[in-house]
């Protein structure tokens, strides 16, 4: 059984969360939203050098 989702105004955040842009992501996202193009965020590369 997967998660059930409770949608309620009580759980909606009404204040702006803190966010510090690190690049052009805000501008790019704005345009992606305007054009409704799906947006993929690629997180930091996980670099693993196996211990030999």
């Amino acid at each position: 059984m997967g998660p059930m989702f409770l949608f309620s105004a009580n759980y909606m955040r009404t204040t702006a969360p803190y966010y510090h842009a690190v690049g052009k992501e805000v501008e790019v996202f704005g345009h992606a939203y305007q054009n409704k193009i799906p947006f993929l965020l690629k997180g930091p590369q996980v670099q693993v050098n196996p211990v030999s």
Partner: protein
Amino acid sequence: MAHQLGQTLITISCHEETSSTDLIGRFIIKGAETVWLDGPLTRAVKEGSIIYLDEIAEARPDIIVAIHSLTDHRRELFIDKLGETIKAHPDFMLVASFNPGYQRGFKELKPSTRQRFIAMSFNYPDENIETTILVSESGIEISDARRLVQIGNKIRNLTELGLSETVSTRLLVDAAKLIQSGLPKRLSVKVAVIEPLTDDPDVLQALGDLSDLMI
């Protein structure tokens, strides 16, 4: 961005058991009858919300199949259990994230799925920005914030330790909050940054020694 755009944001943290049923919906027993319950994706498609599929590469393949028709010109969702296709609300938008890895064991997105999105890489913020984030999120002194960021960057560069996850900004913010609330600095780094990263006693010792030297 959702707040700035005045849109509802629905976040789904995907894991290896997350299936299309979890996202699209299911029949549930209610009293003596069976009723259909929309999942979060169906609801977002109908109401025009932004849906964020965090760690999409972890989800089961049927989710990828389910979103394909939402990520091209059709912008529609097929609900197989109802035999219905619904058109997406004009405000609906799909956002997804994953952490690319180039070692075995990390799940990747298929090229046929990736090319349906525009994409941006997010690396760790540079030292000044990450320091600002820590100060803003915790109220910590800037000198302590900078030390935490330096510890984080040092550990991120220690790829020879074989850590499968490294220091996120979130872990550094947690350490900063603990320091700000009065926990000793070294103990804060140990419990918020080092212990979450590994269970290997030698690596724990090495990272502990490193952080004790730096803060």
